[in-house]
């Protein structure tokens, strides 16, 4: 009755994430949480959201997991081919252009919201890419459902020329802010530090959410389906099977 009046009950279906990136004095740091959701249920407690693009470029993905993975894998292979062709290190703009061209041509139907970061011959770069294909060049960036929580940390603490340790700490703070304040984000913190000619992928850099209770006795699940009757029908032998040498082996 209420539904007919256009008053619907609340419903779910969205994918949540917190991904961030910032530029520090010698490069770029990317960060991500590790929760994957399906509506209100946590589908994966420790997934990877920082994707490889090139040896010097990584990309965080928010949105539909399949889309972010497909689009980053695809562009990553295009970059590899381009490197074989030119024999030069990939540039961040190249990745950026390939990504935005693809996303724009799909008019937002490929739901990938990305934070792209890397260091190339022209220096460190950080970009955000929206599902419709628009891009942005920023000193610090956040994406996903936890983007506001993470941005609150960046807006109040970011400075230019951060050191590596300060940078990592700020990225961790921003991701933690997403993890603890946004229900779509959770579990652990992944970090990726990219500097000139070097990168460090810190998988599960921080594990701030251990299980809070384990029963001392543990639980048993012994109750099996009750067997009411048993009847065994032996297979009829239709083929004669003889034991012989190892004809099929090797």
């Amino acid at each position, binding site marked *: *009755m*209420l539904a007919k009046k*256009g*008053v*619907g*009950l*609340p419903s779910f279906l*969205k994918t*949540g994430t917190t991904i961030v990136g910032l530029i520090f004095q010698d490069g770029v740091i990317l960060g991500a949480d590790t*929760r994957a*959701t399906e509506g*209100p*249920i*946590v589908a994966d*407690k420790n997934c990877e959201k920082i994707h490889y693009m090139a040896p010097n470029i990584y990309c965080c993905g928010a949105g539909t997991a399949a889309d972010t993975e497909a689009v980053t894998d695809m562009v990553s292979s295009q970059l590899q081919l381009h490197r074989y062709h030119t024999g030069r290190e990939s540039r961040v703009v190249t990745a950026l252009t390939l990504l935005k061209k693809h996303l724009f041509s799909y008019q937002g139907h490929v739901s990938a919201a990305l934070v792209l970061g890397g260091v190339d011959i022209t220096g460190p770069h950080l970009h955000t890419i929206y599902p419709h294909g628009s891009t942005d060049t920023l000193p610090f960036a956040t994406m996903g*459902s936890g983007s506001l929580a993470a941005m609150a940390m960046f807006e109040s603490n970011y400075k230019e020329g951060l050191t590596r340790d300060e940078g990592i700490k700020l990225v961790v703070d921003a991701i933690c802010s997403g*993890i*603890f*304040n*946004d*229900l*779509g*984000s*959770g*579990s652990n913190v992944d970090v990726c530090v990219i500097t000139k000619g070097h990168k460090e992928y810190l998988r599960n850099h921080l594990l*701030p*959410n251990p*299980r*809070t*209770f*384990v*029963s*001392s*006795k543990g*639980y048993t*699940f012994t*109750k099996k389906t009750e067997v009411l009757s048993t009847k065994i029908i032996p297979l009829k032998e239709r083929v004669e099977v003889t034991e012989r040498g190892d004809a099929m082996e090797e």
Partner: protein
Amino acid sequence: MTKQAANWSPYDNNGGSCVAIAGIDYCVIAADTRMSTGYSILTREYSKICKLADKSLMASSGFQADVKALQKFLAARHLIYQHQHNKQMSCPAMAQLLSNTLYYKRFFPYYSFNVLGGLDTEGKGCVYTYDAVGSYERVGYGCQGSGSTLIMPFLDNQLKSPSPLLLPAQDAVTPLSEAEAVDLVKTCFASATERDIYTGDKLEIVVLNADGIRREYMELRKD
């Protein structure tokens, strides 16, 4: 001017899970203390458990404003009952009152998912579970709310009670000791918090037995 909001809903889902287990001489009622809307946490410390009478407690999740209105209504009705009968309402009586109250708003329901736990007139543990419009049943254990789909199968596995269709009727109370029941509830919530985004922050456990009411808290994941 562009219209800011396309529509308005009189309901919200503020999340959370509730569990109640009845034993031979006790009842355990538990709920998490997270209150949320959409993907945001409103507060990490909101009690979902309400004492309705000396021997009945209600844990509710759903739409907080409706839950609060329901609690206030039941409190008022219980006060009237006390004036008229000079005693506390029994848990089975409160269970019927709750059902009637919910059904009264059948066409503009309280968006509230309740479990009522307490001790019956013989001092035996009792649990009643409800839907939002007042259908109810006495059970040995029950659970409601956003994490109920995760918790219920586990409780079924651990505490499977005799079919309510059996004749003569079998006792629905669980065979566990009080401490075992509390342990089971803690495991339920620790596990539900792992996989349900709306359950978390803190667990409030209320144990009701012949000695009275005891409250216990346990931390849950805050992500």
